[in-house]
């Protein structure tokens, strides 16, 4: 018998602190497998965020730096500029990346920093106990949107890929839900492309993984995955938004008014 599946060696062989059924674990594995597959584990440096995945610094067995809440892209910038031969990735939740860290994200993208951002969108602040995230859906109840998110009060959820799609400097951009073996396989291929983009020096790469937070959502894990598939993907359509660098244009009222 040969081994058809085993723990990637890029992940430390210790139990994680994540809740039962939390897809952070799947995302970790995809990154670890990619580091091995692309043979870059040895020059990889990961930036752990502030969020449930802060302890990712213990799980990824490569060099790791813990960053202040939201600032991982800035930390990654400093690191990558000092060591262009390092393979630098950040691993960030929606609160970290899209709320407090919005400026650092957009500017790292616009600078076209050759880094890979793994973005875990679980529509909530898991770590701090289930508060509203910038990606919390309309109507979703959280501990700080107790009556359900209502645009007039709590505003609209932010779509990170759609936003970054408009930023020149971005070279790869995709969104995949971590909800089934097929989707996980797709996610893995996207994670791989996001690292390859860095290796080829093309620019900024981000993969958004639609994830579950059974605890924060108050749902059993399987129901949580169904909710991702049925509710989240409606507002956050999966797919590849960008696969090459270039000028995304835009322009007034849909016209692509600008030259590349």
């Amino acid at each position, binding site marked *: 018998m040969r081994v058809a599946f085993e723990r990637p060696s890029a992940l430390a062989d210790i139990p994680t602190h994540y809740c039962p059924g939390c897809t952070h674990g*799947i995302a970790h594995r995809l990154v670890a497998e990619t580091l091995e597959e692309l043979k870059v584990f040895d020059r990889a440096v990961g930036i752990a965020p502030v969020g449930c995945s802060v302890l990712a610094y213990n799980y990824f067995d490569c060099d790791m730096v813990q960053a202040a809440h939201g600032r991982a892209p800035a930390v990654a910038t400093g690191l990558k500029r000092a060591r262009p031969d390092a393979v630098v990735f950040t691993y960030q939740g929606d609160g970290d990346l899209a709320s407090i860290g919005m400026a650092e994200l957009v500017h790292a993208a616009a600078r076209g920093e050759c880094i890979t951002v793994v973005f875990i969108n679980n529509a909530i602040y898991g770590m701090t106990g289930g508060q509203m995230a910038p990606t919390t859906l309309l109507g979703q109840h959280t501990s700080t949107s107790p009556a359900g998110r209502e645009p007039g009060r709590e505003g609209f959820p932010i779509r990170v890929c759609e936003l970054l799609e408009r930023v020149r400097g971005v070279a790869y951009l995709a969104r995949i839900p971590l909800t089934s073996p097929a989707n996980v396989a797709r996610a893995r291929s996207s994670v791989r492309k996001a690292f390859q983009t860095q290796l080829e020096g093309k620019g900024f790469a981000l993969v958004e993984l639609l994830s579950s937070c*059974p605890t924060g959502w108050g749902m059993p894990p399987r129901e949580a995955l169904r909710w991702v598939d049925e509710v989240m993907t409606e507002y956050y359509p999966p797919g590849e938004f960008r696969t090459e660098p270039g000028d995304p244009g835009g322009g007034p009222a849909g016209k692509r008014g600008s030259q590349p």
Partner: protein
Amino acid sequence: MVEKRVLFTEDRCKGCELCLDACPQKIIFMAEHMNGKGFHPAAVTDQERCTGCALCARMCPDLVITVYRPERPTKAVS
């Protein structure tokens, strides 16, 4: 006794049941007993029905599952 194709590191299992839905053979079930963490762990007894497709393992957030496959490749999805 059949050779094991799918192995669960029981103490790492958090009983989330995500592997259940992933298995095309529907052979994974949750054990009656509790593991050291207080969860009912996932298990497979019907090892010969396992195709070694590893879909369960790819959905397990906690890397509980190791999958072996006979040297001659099966037809299952890789």
